[in-house]
């Protein structure tokens, strides 16, 4: 296992006071908290920061950690000596369930005899329900629309009979209902972290993240689409094909439409009761005057239309 430099993780010196430890933790917790942060590796960083704080805020644990000496480098292969003992007797107990949130390095120091976590240390606990686990699943908008099954690979922390932290690889096939929306959760009962002492497992929550789509913008169950139309389609009206999640439909553009006008296709959003709608936002694209003929046509329009698009601006 790798040695962890808890001082480096919190960005403080070895002589830092408890107040400095707290300040460093709070600053980093705000930065990397998975519920707040948008840093890509926030979850892993927060776990590290939390573990470092767990050790350095507690004088007993900090002393035990400091006892390892200063010759270690972060990431260096670490193996506690067989007679490793800090001389602490039954300090603060940590249950195997608590230990499962921390690294192997942490468990090797604080999960053993000294801190009284293993069954041989006399740690007694009632049966306890395992903790809930939340995992994000990234779905395309089409997958959210159609639903289907998704295979998940999970590494769940567990503790063995000796109270050591291990991890178990699991593969789950999960049914995704049609019409899930951004941020929604799917609850899988008893698929979370295992309970301790025969307690039931916690639940697994899958949190839906909808990936950006090349042209749809989902908002809840509704979807928005920018629809490019030609100037004559806007002016004269037209029937044009429009993509929807269920396949293309024909949309009637009313005469005299302008860019930014919004048309609703009822029930063409994500399925549900009621289903969402698709909103089509018109966008007028102007062809380039790439030939003399097109240029002539534009000049003619200029003459006959006598149109000032800036009239509203008073110029």
């Amino acid at each position, binding site marked *: 296992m790798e040695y962890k430099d808890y001082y480096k993780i919190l960005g403080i010196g070895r002589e830092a006071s408890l107040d400095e430890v707290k300040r460093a933790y709070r600053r980093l917790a705000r930065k990397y908290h998975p519920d707040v942060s948008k840093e890509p590796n926030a979850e892993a960083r927060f776990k590290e920061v939390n573990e470092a704080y767990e050790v350095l805020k507690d004088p007993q644990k900090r002393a035990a950690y400091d006892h390892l000496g200063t010759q270690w480098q972060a990431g260096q292969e670490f193996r506690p000596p067989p007679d490793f003992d800090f001389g602490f007797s039954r300090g603060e107990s940590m249950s195997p369930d608590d230990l499962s949130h921390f690294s192997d390095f942490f468990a090797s120091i604080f999960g053993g005899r000294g801190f009284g976590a293993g069954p041989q240390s006399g740690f007694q606990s009632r049966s306890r329900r395992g903790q809930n686990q939340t995992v994000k699943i990234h779905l395309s908008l089409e997958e959210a629309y159609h639903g289907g099954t998704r295979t998940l690979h999970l590494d769940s922390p567990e503790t063995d009979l000796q109270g050591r932290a291990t991890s178990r690889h699991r593969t*789950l096939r*999960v*049914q995704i209902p049609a019409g*899930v929306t951004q941020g929604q959760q799917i*609850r899988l009962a008893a698929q979370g972290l295992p309970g301790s002492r025969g307690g039931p497992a916690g639940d697994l*929550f899958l949190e839906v993240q909808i990936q*950006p789509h*090349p042209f749809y913008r989902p908002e809840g169950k509704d979807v928005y689409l920018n629809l490019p139309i030609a100037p004559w389609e806007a002016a004269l009206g037209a029937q044009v094909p429009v993509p929807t999640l269920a396949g293309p439909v024909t949309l009637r553009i009313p005469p005299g439409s302008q860019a930014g006008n919004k048309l609703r296709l009822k029930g063409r959003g994500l399925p549900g*009761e009621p289903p969402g709608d698709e909103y089509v936002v018109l966008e007028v694209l102007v062809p380039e005057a790439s030939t003399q003929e097109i240029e002539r046509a534009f000049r003619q329009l200029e003459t006959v239309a006598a149109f000032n698009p800036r009239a509203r601006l008073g110029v």
Partner: protein
Amino acid sequence: MNTPIELCYGILLDERHLLGLREIEDLCDVTQPLIEEMVQEGLLMPSGSVPADWLFTGPQVRRVGRAVRLMRDLELNLPATALVMDLLEELEWLRARTRDLEFQLDPRARNLGPPDI
């Protein structure tokens, strides 16, 4: 080594999925007094006037989980947590909106192809 594949069916915690106080407590591993405080703070908005009649919608499960994590990890009190949650929701909405608008402003992303020169 092949690991066995478990087939799971979940429950979608959407607006139509309603939970009572007891279910919320069990599901989120929180106590009734904390849920009551969250309701008083406006963090949770159940239907029903007294706790025994309260019904929470599915998305509120996520709110409770988030509030509990913020309180614990950032050492916040409940009013501060409620404020953070409101601001985070607004921030998320704004980020999503910015991302979508940037996406739509980029002609390549709209699949219009490069301009003819």
